[in-house]
Structure formats: structure tokens, C-alpha cells
């Protein structure tokens, strides 16, 4: 039982990271209809930024805040410079462009910071705290708390502010939104910025446990895709729940199904993606927007 609870909590911690990145993917997919394959590498770049600030003597939280602001700006710039010009072109063209970005950012990271894994000291210590005989890592609790707070803030932004209303309107029906005076282009840019900032949260939270290196988020991206597909590609709530569910599911499968272990963790996530796409393309909470060819 003790082991079970520990696995659930550490699964929720990874799930929080998957959920944040999945939410970023869903925000972009909902508004632009694109799967952003560069989301993981963008998150890695953000983590490297935060690492560099801390390395220059900043304390963690200011560095984290600055990273979020910079990432937001980067996302907005990315949309304005690269995505917007070809927005009317074929969807797959934009997807392939994001793959170009993936490769380019990966190369940039390797060039600037080198390929070797770096130790990134997060704000939470790794020592355990014991609650009722069960030892939890402080880092896991901290990661869960931060990701939930961030997700809640994004939720409030979308449901309680005028900006959020505009964002939703631009995503759901751009033509009519424009008619009632929503600046759709600006909303899409803000959406990319938000996604980049959410990715930064995922990247910075993941870095202490994964070691910081240019390929760090490649597997996390696949988990995030699995979470987003599981929850429904057009449902932000689904993405977060999908992330948490996937994190716990993978941990439990790894612990109790010996054949899966740690080695087939990634393969299990792929199996989730394929199963959901083929059996229930809308995911758990999504509407049936995924079109079968």
C-alpha cells in the first residue's frame, strides 16, 4: 500500500508536467488546428534560459518568472514571424514547419549549451517527507503544486477575463469573432505565447529530475501528446486530466506489470495514442473534432 501511494504521488508529479505540456499543445491545436511538434524543444530552450539565469546568480523564482515572460514573448514572436504568413496554406505545411523548428532549436541548444547533461537544481529539495508512514519526495509535491496553480491560473484567464473570452472566441469561430470586433490575429499570437509559457513551466519543472540536455523533452513531448489525445485534443481540461491520469497509469503499469517495467514506458504511451486515435478519436472529454480520413 505504501509503495502504491508513493507511485501514485510520483505519477501525479510527472503527470503535472505532461499535463502542462499537453495543455500547451491543446491551446495551439484548438486555435490554429496545428500539432506543434516543436513544443517540447521550445520547453527545453526555456529550461536552458532559466538554468542560465540561475547560473548567473539569480535566485530561482525571479529566474522562473523572467523565463515565463521571455517564453511568452518568444511564442508571440514565433507566431507572428513564422506561422502567420503561411496560416492559410496547407495544414501539413505548418506541421512540417514546426518540425523544422524542432530540429533548429535542438541544434541551437546543442551549439550554445553543449550536448552533455547538466544538473539543474530546482527550488524543491529531493529529501522525503513522511506522512502516515508513507515517504513522499518534496520535489514531487512541489511539482504537483506548481503545475496545478499554473493550470488553475490559465483556467481563470480563459473563463473569467475578457482576454480569455476573446481567446476562446477566436479559437471556436474566427470569422464571427472578427465580426464582433475580436482581433483574431492578436488572439492567436497570445495563444502561442501562452503555450510557450506553459511549455516553459513543464520544462523547468522537468529539468531537475530529468537532467538538462537538448533532447530532454523529446520523450516528454510524446507523453504530452498521449495525454492530449487521451483527454481530447480540443479540451484543455481533458489535457490536464489526461496528463495526470497518464502519469499515474504509467507509474503503476511500470511498477506492477513486470513485463512493462521502465523499459516499455514510452511504448505504453504510444499504445495509448494509437488506441485512442483508432477507437475513440475524440478522447475522453473532447468533442468529435478529430476527423477520420
Amino acid at each position, binding site marked *: 500500500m505504501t509503495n502504491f501511494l508513493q507511485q501514485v504521488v510520483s505519477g501525479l508529479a510527472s503527470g503535472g508536467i505532461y499535463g502542462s505540456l499537453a495543455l500547451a499543445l491543446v491551446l495551439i491545436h484548438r486555435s490554429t488546428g496545428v500539432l506543434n511538434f516543436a513544443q517540447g524543444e521550445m520547453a527545453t530552450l526555456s529550461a536552458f534560459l532559466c538554468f542560465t539565469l540561475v547560473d548567473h546568480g539569480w535566485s530561482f523564482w525571479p529566474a522562473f518568472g523572467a523565463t515565463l515572460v521571455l517564453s511568452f514573448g518568444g511564442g508571440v514572436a514565433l507566431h507572428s514571424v513564422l506561422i502567420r*504568413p503561411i496560416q492559410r496554406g496547407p495544414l501539413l505545411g505548418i*506541421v512540417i*514547419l514546426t518540425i523544422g523548428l524542432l*530540429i533548429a532549436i535542438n541544434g541551437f541548444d546543442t551549439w550554445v549549451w*553543449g550536448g552533455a547533461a547538466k544538473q539543474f537544481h530546482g527550488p524543491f529539495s529531493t529529501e522525503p517527507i513522511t506522512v502516515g508512514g508513507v515517504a513522499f519526495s518534496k520535489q514531487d509535491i512541489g511539482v504537483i503544486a506548481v503545475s496545478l496553480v499554473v493550470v488553475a491560473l490559465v483556467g481563470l484567464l480563459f473563463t473569467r477575463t475578457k482576454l480569455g473570452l476573446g481567446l476562446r472566441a477566436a479559437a471556436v469561430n474566427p470569422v464571427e469573432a472578427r465580426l464582433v470586433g475580436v482581433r483574431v490575429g492578436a488572439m492567436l499570437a497570445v495563444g502561442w505565447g501562452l503555450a510557450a509559457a506553459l511549455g516553459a513551466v513543464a520544462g523547468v519543472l522537468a529539468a531537475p529530475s530529468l537532467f538538462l540536455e537538448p533532447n530532454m523533452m523529446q520523450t516528454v513531448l510524446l507523453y504530452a501528446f498521449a495525454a492530449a489525445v487521451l483527454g481530447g485534443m480540443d479540451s484543455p481540461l481533458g489535457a490536464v486530466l489526461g496528463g495526470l491520469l497518464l502519469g499515474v497509469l504509467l507509474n503503476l503499469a511500470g511498477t506492477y506489470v513486470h513485463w512493462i517495467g521502465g523499459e516499455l514506458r*514510452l511504448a505504453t504511451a504510444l499504445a495509448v495514442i494509437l488506441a485512442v486515435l483508432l477507437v475513440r478519436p475524440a478522447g475522453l472529454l473532447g468533442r468529435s473534432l478529430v476527423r477520420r*480520413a
Partner: protein
Amino acid sequence: MKVKLAGFGLVALALAVLPFPLSEFRTVQLATVGAYFIAILGLDVLTGHSGQISLGHGAFMAVGGYTTAILMADHGVRDVWTIPIAAAVAGAIGLAAGIPALRLSGLYLALATFGIAVVLPTILKKFDGFTGGSTGITLFGKPAQTGHGVGVWGLTNNQWLYALTWTVGAACFLLAWWLLASRFGRSLRAIRDSELAAAASGVNRAAYKVGAFGVSAAFAGVAGSLYAINVAYVSPDTFPIQLSLTLLVGAVVGLYGSIWGALLGALLIQFLSDLVGLVPHVDTKQAGPTTLVFGLVLVALMLLLPLVLRLASAITDRGYSRGR
């Protein structure tokens, strides 16, 4: 048609005499280009002509590479004879993968194939009894199977590898050319341009789309097999996700649908780092700068996509239909 055949003859002749003035090192590099070339041809058939995207073609290369390695290491088969078997195995798996792919629209096919390419190395490591796990399979020191040190037609080992790769490459090129100019290729392009119109004209969409997956995977299997023979070693890290993405860049550079462009794409994959190295103060000993430029090339190509497509249709599509 005559002009095209003459062009093929000239390129083939140039490729045939090329290794003699070149160093052994360059010869090996060009042999690898041949393997990329074949894989990109396959990707052209699938993505360029049937409109189904694959971000995981490295996985089919891995199937071919491992088929060759296992046959050579465990069953003592001569390297050349493993190539058709690798094509058959990869082709069969491609056909099997093509069936579920029918149910996925473009975006999700991209996701699924990306996932397969990311996951593949972990699966290769898991079934280590069969694949040799992380250590991989070494094919060195098997003169009876590779002809190494025996000397075929007075060629050095590397020249022999080059000759083998490019002979197969030329055969694959002619095969792709013929396939794409035939009813098969026309049907694929009809489906790509409008599934509805194609179906209304009596094209069996499912059969052709699955067929395209099979053909494309078989090409990738041949490429993987030759890659394994050239490098004489396979491991899970021989076929990383980066390889699949690289092939996609090569295919895009090949102006989507032009099979001559595949040659350009393959050359770019191998020699971009040399080009980047020409820039002063850039150290290409580490992968970063080359990878960065590679990604930027892809981004730039996609930004110029409307122009590229117009050029591509002006140059190539007419050619296929006129040739018949």
C-alpha cells in the same frame, strides 16, 4: 521522355566514375548518400504522391537494417541476398501499418508515425535476445559474407560498397520512376489531390493508399539494409527519431514529388555539415550548428512552400503524365 532518359544516363555515368578520383573516406560518404537516396525515394512515393505523411520512416529503415544484420550474424547469409529479404519484410510491415493509417487524417498520421519513431529504440532494446539490445549487432570480420578483403572485380572494400549501393539505388530509381508514371502513380496523385474525385472515378482508395505504404516501406527497408551493410553495425541508436526527421527534410528538399530532388536531398543530409563548416568561426565537430541550419532550411522551405509547390508542379507533374 528521351531527354529524361538521357539525363538519367548522364547522372548514372557520373556516379559510376565518381569514386575513382575520390578518397576512400568520400567514397564511404557517397555510399551512405545512396542509402539516404533510396529511403527518400520511398518517402516521395508515400508523402509526395499519395499525400500520406510519415515522420517515422527511420523505423522502416531499422526493420531493413535489422533484417540484414540478423540474417548475416545469426544465419550466415551473404550480405547481397539479405537486401531483397529486407525489402520484403519492411514492405510487409509497411502494408500492415498502412491499414490503420487509413483511419487517420494527415495530422494524426504524422503524430502516430512520429510516436513510432521515438519509441522504436526502446523496443529494440527490450527484445535484446533478438536484436542484441543496446549493444547492437556487429557485422565486421565476416569476409565470406561481405567480400571484405577478398576483392570483388579489383575494387577496394569501400568502392565495392559504393558500387553495390548505387547499383541498387539506380534500380530503385528506375522502379520508382516506372511506378509513378504508371497507373499506380496516377491513382496515388488522384487520391492526393481529391479523394472524392478519385473515388468517383473508380480508384480503389484503400488499396492504393495501403499499397503506397507498402512500396514506400520496402524502399526504406532496402535503404536500411544497405545502410547496415555500409556501416557493418546496427544498434538502436543507428535509427533515432532524428534520422526519420532528416529523411523528411530530404524529401521536402526534393521539392515534394520530384524523384530527382531525392538525390539533392540525400546529398544535403550527408554534406550539409561540410557546407556549414565553410562559415568562419563555426566548429562543425559538434552537431549543433549543422542541426540548426538543417532545421532552418526546413523552416525556410515551408515558408516558401507556395512558391515551391508552383515550381514543383511546373517541373515534375507534367512530366509524369506526358511520359505515357
